[in-house]
């Protein structure tokens, strides 16, 4: 979102001469490339991550954890009146999830697997392949992220577009934006040039919170990295805690992606998509033709 406006084209809409559409350069080429590379990375990371999770579908807190140790989340299958049943167990509650979690069909046959074939990569059980793909895309993701961060700082993108202004943090301002979002009223005209405060806070939360947490908890799962940086184990409270936080953070990222895609669709899918592909974002101005 560059401040400078370059009206690439101004086409008066046929019947209303007072409205004109201008195009601004919204996203730089670095932002656009890193965004779409991130889409590819996160897709493979999440699907291969669920493949890895399936090898041991229980989550613990602490340094150690296996079969007989208490788990706060278990996805599994059991017999219920002679019928196999998939379940998700959290604390004391058990939810039947036959067909999706714990027990699902593999090539037409019921199979005991935590996440179903359509949510894992590869679709069939193959921990070695899942790990290879996970680590390859983890590297791409980290390198891509570093380029994006470097560019964001050096180009002024973060300072200009993501930094929250003091007046935006006023409770009344935030509350109004929440109401506007809830009513699906999105900024138009001049206001659409900039991210609103909810967007800024969300993007900052993802860029500076969830994504670094993803990487750090992932690194804590590596015995090599734990030997190089033993404090990782102290920060997250152990390898099993780090594994659980890795899973929880990934789930929050999935929630972010769902909301993000919903917002893109609700606030003008073509304009948003175009701006992330070509960089050009249309703004409709209500003003007399010059």
């Amino acid at each position: 979102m560059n401040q400078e406006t370059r009206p690439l084209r101004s086409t008066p809409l046929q019947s209303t001469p007072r409205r004109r559409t201008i195009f601004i350069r919204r996203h730089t080429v670095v932002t656009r490339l890193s965004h779409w590379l991130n889409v590819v990375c996160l897709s493979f990371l999440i699907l291969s991550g669920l493949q890895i999770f399936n090898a041991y579908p229980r989550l613990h807190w602490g340094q150690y954890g296996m079969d007989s140790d208490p788990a706060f989340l278990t996805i599994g299958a059991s017999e219920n009146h002679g019928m196999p049943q998939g379940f998700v167990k959290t604390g004391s509650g058990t939810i039947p999830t036959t067909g999706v979690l714990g027990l699902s069909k593999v090539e037409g046959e019921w199979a005991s697997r935590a996440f179903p074939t359509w949510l894992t990569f590869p679709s069939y059980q193959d921990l070695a392949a899942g790990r290879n793909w996970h680590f390859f895309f983890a590297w791409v993701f980290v390198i891509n992220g570093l380029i994006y961060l470097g560019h964001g700082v050096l180009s002024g993108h973060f300072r200009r577009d993501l930094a929250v202004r003091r007046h935006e943090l006023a409770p009344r301002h935030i509350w109004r934006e929440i109401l506007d979002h809830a009513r699906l009223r999105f900024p138009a005209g001049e206001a659409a040039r900039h991210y609103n405060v909810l967007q800024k806070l969300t993007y900052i939360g993802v860029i500076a919170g969830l994504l670094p947490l993803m990487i750090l908890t992932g690194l804590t799962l590596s015995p090599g990295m734990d030997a190089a940086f033993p404090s990782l184990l102290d920060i997250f409270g152990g390898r099993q805690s780090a594994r659980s936080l890795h899973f929880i953070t990934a789930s929050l990222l999935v929630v972010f992606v769902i909301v993000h895609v919903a917002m893109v669709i609700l606030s003008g899918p073509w304009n948003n998509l175009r701006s992330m592909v070509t960089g050009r974002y249309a703004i409709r101005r209500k003003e007399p033709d010059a």
Partner: protein
Amino acid sequence: MTDLTRRRFLIGSALGVSALALSGCDRLEQNPEVGGVIRSAEKLTMRAQRLLLGRDALAREFAETDISPAFRVNGTSAPDGEAYAQLVEGNFANWRLKIDGLVDRPLELSLADLKKLPARTQITCHDCVEGWSAIAKWTGVPLGSLLAATGLKPSARFAVFHCADELEKTLDGSGRYYESIDLIDAFHPQTILAYRMNDRDLSVGHGAPLRLRVERQLGYKQAKYIMHIEIVDSFAALWGGKGGFWEDRGYEWYAGI
């Protein structure tokens, strides 16, 4: 580009990506060229970790109170075969550890010989590739001290551990467990040949009489039932050629991640 062609391009690429995602994924994994690129990340990971680790960075050691109540017996729980059964029956008195290959003075050691050597005790976390972990106390002989005693020929690069257990039944014996590490890990102070676990003799389930502890790597590197250590310059000629039972089945040779 007009709006319409742009729109078509966007729809087209979105559809293309989803189609690829739904149908092509497994085929991507099975394509050897793609697989080669994907697996190249292992070398990058190993180089980066070695750079950060240096030779002697130690894995975290825990307190007695951190030892986990249970420790899963994974892989083989008891090797098959008459030979191993007889060893168990004789309380491993007839067992000998052979160290040979690219060494100056090959060695043969009994369990009693090993127990007389200076030992190291460490309480460490065993991280399985599947995701679980367990903490235990291990006592054994540092591998580096044995290799110093045998002396290594200049061409020596890897230590290969040949084990008594067959994890997969095959006609050609390629299901026999084996593992390998390079000399950096072989001479690491925490790399020991353990004969005690949690203050008791190593049980059959956990690899009696001797198992490897190489603490900066995952569980499948911690070979159990060690019979023979061979120093080699390459493991290409051994079984699948990838340096280990699980490595021959697609897992990384460098298991620091």
